[in-house]
Structure formats: structure tokens, C-alpha cells
């Protein structure tokens, strides 16, 4: 168990200066994420251009892992199509939860989060933003359907 593997430079940097932090107004969809165990709260707002996530922001409070993960996620998914985001989510989920899963090359900077898997109680911190984003995207899909 190596702390340096968890708190890598990239993580500390994104915790200190989170990218795409804030709130889009107006937004096409939004969602709240809450981890009652540690009190982490995230709010994600998204703008969609057809199938594409043209812009997004997150705001909230949380530990370094949850803030950095949200910041890295926002950078990684901005401008991507829904299917690309789903693919990325599948990959990050795999490396966070499976101890020996290989780290896919297309993970880019998100690979900095792979140290989290050595700290099972912290996996939820890293995945909260993804669940919140998924909720916002699902909600927008439902809205499209009902219209």
C-alpha cells in the first residue's frame, strides 16, 4: 500500500485546482450525487448537442479523490458522444474495482486514478462523479423520450 500511488501529482493538482468547476446556466440536464458515508456532494450540469456532451461543469465538496476524479472526468468526457462516455465509464469502473485489470491506453489522464483500487474504501469516492454524470445523462434521455 503506497500513498504516493493514491495521491499522485495529477490527483493533488486536480484537487487543488479543479477543472470545469462551476455550474452551467442554462443547462440541458443536471444531477446531484451524494455519498452519505463521507458527506461528499456533487452537482453536475450538462449541455447536449444531439448525441454529444458539448459542455459540462461540476461543483461540490468532497475529499481529494472525489474532487480530482470529477475534475478529470469532466475533462475526459467533454465533447464526447454518449457511447464514447459509456465506453470510458466501463473502462474506469473496471480499473477501479478489479485489482489486476489492465489499464487501457485510451484512459489518458484518468489512469491516474488506478491507485485507488488499492484502497477499497475509497473506490466510492472516485466513482461518485461518474454515477452523477450518468444520472444527468439518463435524465436528459428520459426528457427527450417524454417530449
Amino acid at each position, binding site marked *: *500500500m503506497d*500513498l504516493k500511488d*493514491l*495521491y499522485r501529482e495529477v490527483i*493533488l493538482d486536480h484537487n487543488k485546482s479543479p477543472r470545469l468547476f462551476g455550474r452551467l446556466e442554462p443547462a440541458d440536464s443536471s444531477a446531484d450525487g451524494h455519498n452519505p*458515508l*463521507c*458527506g*461528499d*456532494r456533487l452537482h453536475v450540469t450538462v449541455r447536449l448537442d444531439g448525441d454529444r456532451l458539448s459542455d459540462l461543469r461540476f461543483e461540490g*465538496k*468532497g*475529499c*481529494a*479523490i472525489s474532487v480530482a476524479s470529477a475534475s478529470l472526468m469532466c475533462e475526459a468526457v467533454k465533447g464526447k458522444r454518449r457511447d464514447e462516455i459509456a465506453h470510458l465509464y466501463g473502462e474506469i469502473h473496471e480499473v477501479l474495482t478489479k485489482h489486476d485489470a489492465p489499464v487501457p491506453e485510451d484512459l489518458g489522464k484518468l489512469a491516474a486514478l488506478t491507485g485507488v483500487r488499492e*484502497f477499497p*474504501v*475509497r473506490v466510492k*469516492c472516485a466513482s461518485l462523479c461518474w454515477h452523477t454524470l450518468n444520472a444527468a445523462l439518463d435524465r436528459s434521455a428520459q426528457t427527450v423520450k417524454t417530449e
Partner: protein
Amino acid sequence: MSVAPAHAAPAYDVNRVWRDFPILAREVHGRPLVFLDSAASSQRPRAVIEAVDEYEERHHANVHRGVHLLSQEATAMFEHARERVRGFVNAASIREVIFTRGTTESINLVAQSYARNRLQPGDEILLTALEHHANIVPWQLVAGQTGARVRAVPMDRRGVVSLEDFTACLGPRTKIVACAHVSNALGTVLPVREITRLAHARGAVVLVDGAQAVPHQRVDLAKLDCDFYAFSAHKMYGPTGIGVLVGRESLLEAMPPWQGGGDMILTVSFEKSTYNELPFKFEAGTPNISGAVGLAAAIDYIDGLGIENIHAHEQRLLTIATEKLARIPGLTIIGTAPEKASVISFTLDDIHPHDLGTILDAEGVAVRTGHHCAMPVMEFFGVPATARASFACYSRESDIDALVAALAKAREVFG
């Protein structure tokens, strides 16, 4: 050459006490364990572990049922434990000592068996701002069932609930007062004796959540005079899954059973059952016998050390730790009441407590991080969570130094 008089109490030898707890000798992440999370659950001395083992290996059978020897032995041990508990908190009678699964169940029992049958719409249940969720949610449930209201006496920035504020909140509709003896999140010791006196003067019944008090200080229920007192074995060096509700006999007599089943009845027919006498009326089903045996052994252990000696030892550690932590730049102690138990909640710079917890753990230091099941307390202090170090009879001054060193490491990681 001086010779200590024969009657002088031996000095508190914390290293000897430390050696009584086998788990403390283990390593975590390749480092010696520094266990500073006793307020969540304390460790068990060898004497408790062996007492439980001895019961399991030699005496186990169901209680209050068999004529055979093992059942008689198990019953005797179980009822001996009840008498040990009675003596430990100075309850009036073993009829007032009910075994439960823990503090939470004890409070739920009172909420459902006592409060639910008495509260009218508009009646008030008065809590304090520093309560643990276990002393909030059961009252919200019964308020929902009866139309009563839950109110909370405010606290100040130190985490103190004043008697003036308490008196101001005590109204003609206050039927129940429920408060902690010691705050788990802040360490504040509440003046429960005075609170009880004031509440009784207004005709309210008082429940005290003693989970964090019983391991740290002498609790004398004859003096406190509250109507219900709840605590758990696992915070006082005993096993998990067993706790106690001590209740005033006249109130318990008038309360209906909470759960139905074996052991709590005298006769059962399909038309009607008659209920057993106290305390068995509230102990449906086979109880946690080995837990009770372990609790009795834990009380023996505490008595062996002397609760006053434990208190003095922990208070000394609290003073030292408070001084050492306060010297760390960026460290804020949350909960600064003049009278505290050996619990220190704190934050460090803007490092999230969960990051602190992980870094401390890697250094072998176990602290609690999070909201401590007291979200209203966190809300009041404007923090999502805190880190909390808590001390027990086996905590050493070197544990504090290890904590301070690990906190320096955390600042290093976060620059």
C-alpha cells in the same frame, strides 16, 4: 529511602493495561497499530475474550428454560451479569436492568413502548443539538406515529448546551427529554443531573444516552435520577451486540412489551397471553448470553482498574493531546467544551477528513473520519466531516505522538 504506605493505590500502569489487550500488539500496513478509535468501539482485554470462550466451551445452553445443569449454569451466568450491570451503574434493582442489542435498541424500545403510547399530537420531545442519530431518528419515528414534535436545544460554538437554553426550550408540552451524557462527536459532557431535575420539575420523563459516558466516568443512576439510561457493551471493553436499558421500575411496569416471543410470557393461548415480570417482559427470544457474560467480565476489568483511575488517565491524555494538536498549524479542534470526555474531533487545513483518515491509516494510526452519525453537529460547525481521535484506558502518550507525526505526514502529502 521512602516506602509507600501499604494502602496507597498503585500508580496507573498504562503499559500493563496495554498488554491486557492482545489486538493492540498487531501491525497494520507493516507498522505498529495505534488505535485511536475507541469511541466507535473499544478493544477487548484478554479477560473478556477468555470469559466468553470459557462460557462457550463449558457452559452454553439456553437460559431460563432447562432443568439440566448447563442451562442452570448459563442462566446463573446471565443473571450474574445483570447483577454486575446493576451494581456498576447503581440501579435500584435487577428488575430495572434490561438487556438489549445496544444503545440504539434501548432507545427504540423506550420510543416505541413508552413514548408511542403516551404522546399526543402537539406534545414535544426535546433533544439537544449534539445528539447521535440513534437519539434522533427513533424520536422522529415516534413523532410521525403520534403527531408529536421533535425539538432540539441549541449548543454554542464550543459544543456546550447551557442549562439556560435547556430551560428556555422546556415547555408545557415537553413530555420527553432525550439527551446524550457525553457527545460522541465533540466529547462534551452534559449536565444530565441538572437536566433531569429541570425536566422532572416540568413533568417530563428523561432518557439519557450513556453510550459514551459509561466507559469514561462513574455513572451513578441513583444520583442522576433519570428515568431511562441506555448504553452498549462494546464501547466499554465488552462484546458487540449487547447493551442495556435501565428504566425506572414504575414506568417499565406500566409499559407494554415491545417485542413478543419466548421468555417474555407467562402463559400463551391463542386467545390471550400474559406477560412475564420485569425485566423479562422486555427480553423476547433467546438473549445474547455470551455477550452478557463478556459484559460482566468487562465490568470486572474496569472495576479492577478503577473507573476513577481510568478517568484520570484519559483526562491527562486529553489535556496532552489537546495541547499538542493545537500547536499544529492549520489544525482546528471541533468541540472545545470545558468539560469533555477523551474525544478530540478536528480538521486539518482544507484536507478532507477522509484523505486524512487514509494517510493516517497508512501510518498505522486508526482514527474515525466522517460525520460520526451526528450530521446535525457537522452542519452546525459547517464541516462535512471531521477526523476524531478518542482515548481509552489502554491509550498511551506515545499514541498521541504517533498521531501528531502522521498528521505532519498528511500535510507533507498535501503540500
